[in-house]
């Protein structure tokens, strides 16, 4: 019984790590711009594809050993994916912001950006799925009836590290302070000598960079890639961020793991076809009782 609980806990942590990593990007951008960046799930998908191309290039074309490829994949995927995120900000969101467009239009633009990423991918690389090449030897460890792989542990450790890094940036650094200041009063930020757009770009770099990292880890864990892979996981991560209290780093992290845990639990006791139905129902119930999420605070809109 104890082994079963620990086994499921590890599975839940690993599965929740992906939600948490993606939810962090949603919550960062929302925290700064009060924009729900609905393209974020697809940025995760693009990250997985970037990782795929980087990995195949080094592994197959150049014959570089797998662990070197992984060491190259992590920074390259993060950098290239963050460029995608920054490009979206630059060509889609910033012009609207400078015109003072209502939030609703920016959210609809974000939805469209996501669709464009999906269908551009479909148009360019075709509908056939891509198989992600194995980069490292997966070892299965067995401790007292509980089995886990080195990859699973790496995913969980990465998610915790990313959380700690982001939490440190937001609470301790001046850039993080500027992010929080923007979320409170965008207008007054330039008065402090802070270039608003620069901070917003940093926010997108962080959010999409870590979505890229999640894409790489996801592709390594479930090595089948297709253009719509970011859609559902993106929605779920968004809901996880809302349940945690969107805008709060701790909330996104907690929400991601909570959703992971609920899904694993459902699968452990029910047919797996019920997974999403039950998981979303539980989240809906949580939101009914705590509409602002765990860490969220109700904000009054100033008129």
């Amino acid at each position: 019984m104890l082994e079963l609980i620990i086994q499921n806990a590890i599975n839940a942590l690993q599965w929740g790590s992906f939600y948490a990593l993606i939810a962090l990007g949603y919550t960062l951008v929302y925290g700064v711009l009060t924009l729900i960046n609905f393209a974020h799930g697809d940025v995760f998908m693009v990250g997985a594809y970037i990782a795929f191309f980087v990995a195949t290039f080094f592994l197959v074309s150049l014959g570089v050993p797998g662990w070197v490829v992984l060491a190259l994949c992590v920074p390259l995927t993060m950098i290239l994916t963050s460029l995608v995120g920054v490009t979206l900000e630059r060509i889609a969101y910033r012009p609207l912001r400078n015109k003072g467009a209502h939030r609703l239009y920016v959210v609809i633009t974000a939805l469209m950006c996501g669709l464009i990423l999906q269908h551009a991918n479909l148009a360019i690389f075709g509908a056939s799925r891509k198989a992600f090449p194995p980069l490292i030897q997966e070892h299965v460890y067995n401790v007292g009836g509980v089995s886990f792989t080195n990859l699973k542990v790496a995913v969980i450790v990465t998610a915790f590290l990313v959380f700690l890094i982001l939490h440190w940036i937001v609470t301790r650094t001046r850039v993080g302070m500027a992010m929080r200041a923007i979320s409170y009063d965008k207008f007054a930020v330039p008065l402090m000598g802070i270039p608003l757009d620069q901070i917003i770009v940093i926010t997108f770099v962080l959010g999409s960079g870590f979505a890229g990292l999640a894409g790489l880890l996801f592709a390594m864990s479930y090595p089948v890639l297709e253009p719509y892979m970011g859609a559902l996981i993106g929605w779920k991560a968004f809901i996880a961020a809302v349940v945690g209290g969107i805008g709060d780093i701790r909330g996104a992290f907690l929400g991601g793991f909570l959703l992971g845990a609920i899904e694993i639990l459902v699968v452990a006791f029910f047919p797996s076809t019920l997974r999403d139905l039950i998981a979303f129902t539980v989240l809906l119930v949580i939101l009914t009782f705590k509409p602002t999420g765990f860490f969220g605070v109700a904000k009054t809109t100033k008129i």
Partner: protein
Amino acid sequence: MMLSVENLEVKYGNIQALHGISFHVNAGEIVTLIGANGAGKTTSLYAIARLTPPEAPRVIGGDIRFQGRSILTTRPSDVVKQLKMALSPEGRRIFGNLTVMENLKLATFARDKDADLEREYERVFDLFPRLKERRHQRSESLSGGEQQMLAVGRALMTGCRLLLLDEPSMGLAPVLKYELFRKLKRLNEEGMTILLVEQNASLALNLAHRGYVLDTGTIVAEGTSAQLINNPEVKKAYLGG
């Protein structure tokens, strides 16, 4: 001349808010812009701070010069960083979700690495001891007067040489008003140039060296504070007879 505004015309959307106003501020002076609500005082400061629409106006004519150079293409963050002008805006606009200390620290974002910040925090705390007592509190929990002190302190922490103040007396109890204005006087004596926008004309003219009277986007009177105080028109319209 430190700052000069020349025939400035600005619009909010299609509505013209300033109809070609001119004024200037010399280094070391306290200059005040007085006038009723909607006269264009805040608009003038927003234009000088180069804030961008939709909240701030669009310049359609004239020029704003800092030490002789036009600043119409300067970004708002560079107005603070390079020109060392800082605006303490109307309504304070402090970051309520940050602590007092974080608000002050944030204002040093654009400062040189070698600036002696510890000494400057001390200077602000010396000027406003209340802020020191409350430095670890979330700033939205401060009283109105304390928030105003924070707004001024925050502007000072940017390392400014020209302080733009928008309605610093608004919402303050009379005792606090006089206290704040005494502190502004002290700041000026220590070398700070101040451009002060006020609805409370008598308070402003008592502090300032010179002043301009704005009415619906035009300057209707100007002169030394003494001249304005004794100007019958100004007396009648703004100083309560």
